[in-house]
């Protein structure tokens, strides 16, 4: 008897799990723009993951003045830059840095901002005030300036860039997540959960956060794109990834003197930045619609 029950239960559970994911996928597929975003960002991710196989890293950093500033050709798919480095190789190896910076800083700031925001929004009162005033103070400084000064004091480099960008973006996440949490806390089912004897931690993790997921996901995907852009900006200013490592923003900075005669030098990394961030934005929009079971019909 007990065997039969266990068997039944597991089948039911598997059915449910699969069903849920399948349904989210089904709803996401309906949105053409979201699928386009997903395809573009997947291509970027694949290029970044298999960068070493597609084009040798040496191609991206070795200077070879004899072939400098060549236009697109069969040998150099997207041409070469002012030091004779293959631009295609630099773009795909740059995708590694750019995407990694975008995702890592976003995950870090969603995590940190999420904890602070959830605590502030759920408990309110003095705790809320304490956390939010600190965040306000950080927010009062323009993010790029803050990141710049942090990098300037810690010294340039990938790790310090990540730290600086995370610190400067935590406050806006805290703010968004706090607002979302506050709108959910007032709802009856939270009170009902409390009336069932649920602990605060469980209420926050199980009842409030899943309901707040929509706006957080949208904010997070948008943030990945803005992180890519500000990483590019910092590298452009020489405070991010150091040469000769390929990074999209640094590529822009390197080529700005030649932009008048060789415009493809800035257009290609520019298009890469725009495509990556745009695809993440529209994917985020589609995800929000797909993840919210309330929009199910």
């Amino acid at each position: 008897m007990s065997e039969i029950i266990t068997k039944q239960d597991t089948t039911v559970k598997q059915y449910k799990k699969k069903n849920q994911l399948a349904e989210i996928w089904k709803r996401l597929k309906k949105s053409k723009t979201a699928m386009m975003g997903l395809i573009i960002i997947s291509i970027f991710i694949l290029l970044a993951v298999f960068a070493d196989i597609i084009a040798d890293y040496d191609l991206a950093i070795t200077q070879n003045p004899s072939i400098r500033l060549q236009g697109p050709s069969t040998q150099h798919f997207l041409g070469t830059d002012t030091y004779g480095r293959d631009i295609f190789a630099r773009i795909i190896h740059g995708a590694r840095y750019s995407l990694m910076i975008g995702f890592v800083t976003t995950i870090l700031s969603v995590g940190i901002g999420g904890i602070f925001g959830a605590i502030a929004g759920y408990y309110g009162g003095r705790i809320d005030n304490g956390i939010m005033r600190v965040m306000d103070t950080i927010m009062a400084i323009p993010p790029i300036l803050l990141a710049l000064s942090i990098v300037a004091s810690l010294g340039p480099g990938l790790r310090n860039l990540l730290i600086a960008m995370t610190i400067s973006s935590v406050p806006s996440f805290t703010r968004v997540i706090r607002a979302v949490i506050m709108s959910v806390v007032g709802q009856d089912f939270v009170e009902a959960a409390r009336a069932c004897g649920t602990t605060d931690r469980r209420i926050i993790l199980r009842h409030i956060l899943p309901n707040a997921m929509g706006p957080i996901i949208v904010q997070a995907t948008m943030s990945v794109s803005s992180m890519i852009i500000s990483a590019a900006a910092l590298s452009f200013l020489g405070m991010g990834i150091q040469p000769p490592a390929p990074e999209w923003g640094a590529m822009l900075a390197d080529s700005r003197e030649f932009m008048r005669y060789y415009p493809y030098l800035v257009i290609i990394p520019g298009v890469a930045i725009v495509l990556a961030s745009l695809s993440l934005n529209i994917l985020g929009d589609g995800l929000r619609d797909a993840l919210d079971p309330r929009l199910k019909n």
Partner: protein
Amino acid sequence: MSDKLLDIKDLHVIYETEDDTVRAVNGINLKIGKGETLGLVGETGAGKTTTALSIMGLLPIGAGKILSGEIIIENRDILKFTEAEMRHIRGEKISIIFQDPMTSLNPVLTVGEQIAEVLELHKDLDKNGIQKRVDEMFELVGIPAQRKHEYPHQFSGGMKQRIVIAMALACDPELLIADEPTTALDVTIQAQVLDMMDELKQRLNTSMILITHDLGIVAQTCDKVAIMYAGEIVEYGTLEEIFEGENHHPYTVGLFGSIPSLTKETKRLSPILGLMPDPADLPKGCKFHPRCPKCIEKCKIEEPKDVVNGTHIIKCHLYNINNFK
């Protein structure tokens, strides 16, 4: 009836805001026996929900405050409990059904998961045991157990309320507080839900506090009735004493005058004139005196005391030990 389960003694609850102190509950006494149903009746703002939230220990943090009094369950005063101890009481010993089933279920969890959660918190059961119990609860409220994998929005309002009831009853609580459980439902579903609650209560021998402003529902389901006005219980008695008895508090008379009768022919209803007093600025003496048709000078100065006749209690100057029998 049998032994008492809940005993509220002289409970005072206030809400503090920056510029006002709202006296929501002013010294109420209530007793509920095992398996008994108490109807808590009164206008909006009479303090019914505040009383319920005080029992659950769920008064809004920061604003709501219990000034004095005792709430005794099984010989222990739960007002002295720590938050962790209260969590054990909630859901396991006392459950509450909120007014609006549409919003009291979490929209992103399946209904099965939500019932399972209560069990995970309070019962020492393994996964299969919990699922079995969840299935049982669904059967109990008349919903096929296969539907436990669906989300709240896939159910109708009446079914949602049944699920909320199933959730409240999952741990066999000894006391069920129903805060206007049928207000958000239409009349036919109201009847179904009430019948079901009545039946379950009998079967599980649960005590219940039914908060409502619908006297029809009270007549249908309750054993005892407490009429609340401005944070006080102005009349308390068995169902017969309130609905059939001779002597009543003028407020109770007013309440009954406000509903149309099927037997007597009246051109107009006689509602209670005026409005509920501002709970931040309650009148002196009897709190009902500004609206009372039988108001005498004494009512304006002195607060009336409870006059007791067996199980029937009236708080009014019109009655004393001699004329209240």
